[in-house]
């Protein structure tokens, strides 16, 4: 067994093991969503299955965390923009943002 530091704590790991193995062993809830650092360098997702870990490696799992604005703002926003969800999710609408007129102090 080799000793790794995972999320700041010592962990005994059977080597050889890849990043993907470690994700599995740690029961990471959404493995396709976690970000991983090995020795403070981010690992590309494509390399999770091939990157071998070594004795003494420091591994950090980083997770998405939302925030505090609340109210189903996505739904609300869709309503406001007159947008309806469809099944596909590939096309991106890009703009470079020059049309907004600010509403400074208009709601006193």
């Amino acid at each position, binding site marked *: 067994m080799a000793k790794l530091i995972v999320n700041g704590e010592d962990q005994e790991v059977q080597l050889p093991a890849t990043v993907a193995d470690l994700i599995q062993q740690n029961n990471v809830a*959404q493995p396709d969503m976690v970000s991983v650092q090995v020795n403070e360098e981010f690992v590309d997702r494509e390399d999770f299955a091939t990157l071998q870990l070594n004795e003494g490696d420091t591994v950090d799992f980083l997770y998405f965390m939302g925030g505090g604005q609340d109210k189903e703002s996505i739904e609300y926003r869709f309503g406001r923009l007159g947008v309806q969800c469809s099944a596909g999710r590939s096309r991106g609408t890009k703009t470079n943002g020059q049309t907004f007129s600010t509403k400074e102090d208009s709601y006193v």
Partner: protein
Amino acid sequence: MFDFTEEELNRYSRHILLQDVGVEGQEKIREGKVLVIGAGGLGAPVAMYLAAAGVGTIGIVDGDVVDLSNLQRQIIHTTPDVDKWKVESAKETINAINPHVKVNTYRDFLVADNALDIVKEYDFVVDGTDNFPVKFLINDACVMAGKPFSHGGILRFEGQTFTHVPGTACYRCMFKTPPPPGAVPTCSQAGVLGAIAGMLGTIQAAETLKYLTGVGELLTNKLLTFNAKTMDFRKINVKKTDRCPICGTNPTITELIDYEQAACDLHK
């Protein structure tokens, strides 16, 4: 040389007493222009502490109205504010805390079309939003505009935050793209302990004041995470990535993106 009135000197005396702040630091705070995006769980304590601290100009972006379920943590709004625009309610509270603060309200959600125009007016930006498309939008707009910002996220009993200034790690260095819609729950779906918003929001407010005054070390190249169940706090060192799609050496993102629209079709 500093034209503080007696009332202001008294109001800010506990700042001025701080050796690291003093009248000079208080003047920097007064000259500061801070944009708070989202007048919710995080934006509420941020805006209130910044107002109390005497930040000269506070901009607030939110297109939502106050709901009864917000009051459990969005302490800038009170019971009589239900159904009011959040920006309006927030402005009233800020004015009541400190009438010296100029409040700019943007009664809208931040989108690719308005982000750069709004962000460019400010010295520092605070992300108090709850959804990933906007978190990425704030990151991208601030990186493009060269603006520092504080990122914040909370869920259930946990929180995480980092501070970005140009040249340090950005959100996309850590997370390349937003999770697919619905893949990661937000507070409105999974719940959050109200005080967690205060814990994280006050960290963001402190980072803002540190940035404005130049005091101490910011949470740059560090992701601070905490779990209130155990009260474990952890700072993870993170590095700016050369391969980052927006701040790396060969950025592939050159325009702002509305991720929701990428998932949806527009209907007139």
